[in-house]
């Protein structure tokens, strides 16, 4: 049983992690496409329309991969987590159903119009289609985060006579306090990815001396939006998210921070390796009292360590939670530094000629993906050993009928298929970047 549980968890972790590489780019780019399309509409310059078409193609490729890798996730609730679905479907089926009705139909309809309909729709109509694609992808994100938030912090439910979880308040579900901070945090994280990808492509063009007008536009727009995004990611959204964890899941906070002992004036660990057997942090580099201050706004506040909780309630993989959290925060801090320098140079009019900073922007491309992924792993692995926090253990949610062997079969199948998908994605995007926005490709390509 434990063996099958591990395979089912790996299965979902793999498919979900791979899936989220694509929506974070599409949701981020959707915002930037609205910015570029608005500039096109206001200035009337064809330059911006070409920029929109160029990024629209990359958006379309990423969107298609997001859809094909997203459908398996929706199925996997039932296939691999049947007992969880049976118990909780009445609640999370609501948010997933609303995602289908309000977001997927909107997105798929207007993406087609956005990609194929520019001539027929005219400038204003095409702007509206762009905005609706943005709205659709961000609404989709909302319902997914609402689903995830309910698993982190179940609200608005009751247990019926058969011990099934039933919805008792629709608005409590939709306005879950966890969602209200997790949603902006996730979406701004996506915007950070979108901005770094756009800045990276722009920097590549500027450094290689091609497509210069577009390189400048991409870097300018991406750095302006990106600076705002990286700051908002820390304050208030990241900070508030941390305080929610501290309040509702203190044991998760202790695992994230590598805090084994409850103490007043708890230090903030910057570096160090958690040793769960010996229950201590090796080679610690800490800021004294900082954790107490960040969590409770008092330097001497008591922060509960892992020793305050029974080990069966500890997250099942404490090093994973600790490292992912530190990778996320560490990268987020570097993003702020890089975007601040780039923003300052842009303001002084020196960015386009500053090769070291352009190099950094170009090479930064993979890091927002790593930060977003690490953030999700922190949240999901931090929730363990619960599948619904405080209500249902992960081991009680798995499909009892599906054996480890069958789950391995499909996991290996997905690994093979997704390797092919990843290669095709990189190939297609590279080709678009090689080609650049200056000349139009003969015949519009079709992706959706």
């Amino acid at each position, binding site marked *: 049983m434990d063996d099958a549980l591990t395979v089912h968890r790996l299965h979902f972790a793999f498919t979900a992690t791979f899936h989220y590489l694509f929506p974070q780019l599409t949701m981020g780019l959707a915002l930037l496409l609205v910015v570029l399309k608005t500039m096109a509409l206001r200035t009337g310059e064809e330059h911006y329309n070409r920029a929109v078409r160029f990024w629209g193609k990359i958006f379309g490729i990423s969107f*298609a991969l997001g*859809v*094909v890798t997203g*459908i398996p996730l*929706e*199925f996997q*609730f*039932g*296939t*691999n987590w*049947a007992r969880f*679905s*049976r*118990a909780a*479907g*009445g*609640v999370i*089926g*609501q948010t*997933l*159903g*609303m*995602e*289908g*009705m*309000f977001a*997927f*139909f*909107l997105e*798929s*309809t*207007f993406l*087609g*119009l956005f990609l*194929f*309909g520019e*001539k*027929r729709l005219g400038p204003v109509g095409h702007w509206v289609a762009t905005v609706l694609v943005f709205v659709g992808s961000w609404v989709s994100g909302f319902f997914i985060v609402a689903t995830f938030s309910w698993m982190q912090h179940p609200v608005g439910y*009751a247990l*019926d006579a058969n011990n*099934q979880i*039933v*919805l*008792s308040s*629709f608005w409590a579900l939709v306005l879950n306090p966890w969602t209200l901070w997790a949603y902006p945090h996730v979406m701004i994280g996506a915007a950070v990815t979108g901005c770094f990808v756009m800045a990276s492509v722009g920097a590549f063009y500027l450094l290689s001396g091609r497509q210069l007008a577009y390189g400048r536009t991409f870097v300018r727009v991406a750095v302006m939006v990106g600076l705002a995004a990286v700051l908002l990611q820390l304050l208030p959204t990241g900070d508030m998210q941390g305080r929610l964890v501290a309040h509702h899941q203190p044991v998760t906070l202790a695992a994230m921070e590598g805090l084994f002992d409850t103490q007043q004036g708890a230090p903030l660990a910057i570096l160090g390796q958690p040793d769960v057997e010996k229950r201590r942090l090796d080679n610690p580099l800490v800021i004294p009292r900082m954790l107490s201050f960040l969590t409770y706004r008092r330097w001497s506040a008591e922060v509960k360590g892992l020793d305050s909780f029974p080990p069966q309630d500890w997250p099942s993989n404490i090093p994973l939670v600790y490292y992912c959290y530190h990778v996320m925060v560490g990268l987020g801090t570097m993003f702020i530094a890089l975007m601040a320098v780039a923003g300052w140079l842009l303001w002084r009019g020196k960015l386009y000629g500053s090769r070291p900073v352009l190099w950094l922007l170009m090479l930064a491309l993979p890091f927002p993906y790593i930060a977003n992924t690490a953030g999700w792993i922190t949240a999901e692995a931090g929730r363990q050993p619960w599948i619904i926090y405080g209500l249902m253990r992960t081991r009680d949610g798995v*499909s009892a*009928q*599906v054996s480890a062997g*069958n789950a391995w079969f*499909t996991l290996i199948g997905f690994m093979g298929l997704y390797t092919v*998908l990843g290669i*095709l994605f990189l190939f*297609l995007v590279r080709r678009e970047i090689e080609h650049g926005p200056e000349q139009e490709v*003969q*015949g*519009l*390509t*079709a*992706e*959706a």
Partner: protein
Amino acid sequence: METLWFCLVAVMIAVYVVLDGYDLGAGIIHLFVARNDGERRAVLRSIGPLWDGNEVWLLAGGATLFFAFPAVYAAGFSGFYLPLMIVLWLLVGRGLSIEFRNHLKNAIWAPFWDAMFFLCSLLLAVFFGAALGNVVRGVPLDEHGAFFEPLWTNFRLGAETGIFDWYTIIVGLAAFCTLAVHGALWVALKTEGAVNERSRAVAKVGWWGVAGLTLIVTGLTFRVQPQVPARLAAQPWGYVFPALALAGLFSMAWFLARREECRAFLGSCAYILGMLTSAAFGLYPCVLPASTNPAWSLTVHNSKTGDYAMRVGLVWWTIGMVLVIGYFVFVNRHFAGKVRTEENGY
């Protein structure tokens, strides 16, 4: 309330089959009706901007089932674990073949993507038919409402049954024929010239297959699942569903002979809707009948979620559906008319 949701889920799934059915069907027939690259591209363009929107209906239908009847969703998805995963891979493969054919304009690869498009479409049609066959025949549910079926065992009906037995294979074949004709009628509707001619020829031949298999499948179903004829006998108004299917079937042939392509296609839609609603009517109140012990069947009563959730769901579902119909009308008007054999985008 649960009856209403049963109907809504059944209709959403039926709409999915009607809509995605024509692009699956287009995939099944395209190797035969389109002989050169230009013609193949015309077939692809006839479904190009619409197919992914059609697949959203599968997601929306699945999600609606999830929230209204979580026990059915959980039992069905875990019990049909392997075929569902294979369906997912086929959907991915099919999407890839459509998109990449457009991206890689290379003579070497075009036949490869065409073959993949054909194979994935064909297998999906058979799998969907077999899935319906499984639901109608009943699955080996235990007293906790769970089961697991291997892909096949000995191809016989009985306690140790697999996804594929002789009955579900015949239903799968019927689905294959039905969707091939449905797709042929769609392609005929959307194209001109040689492709149009050949599609109508495929539809004419295929119609006999559909008619024959309808007869066989109906006869077999009445024996395999006695609940269906029993329910029709108890509530004779339910004959409207098979009547709709028959009317659709004959109007297909009638309008096809008169080259009224649009009406023939609508006839095919009516046929599919009629067959699926007949099956749903025949099974009700069961959603997933048990082949082990009728008392363990999952019905709308023992698998539903709370009443409050169903009432709230009805509010947002209605709002959502109004929006969906709005988009649908808008897009189909936008992409209405025939596609030409050589045309670049819209």
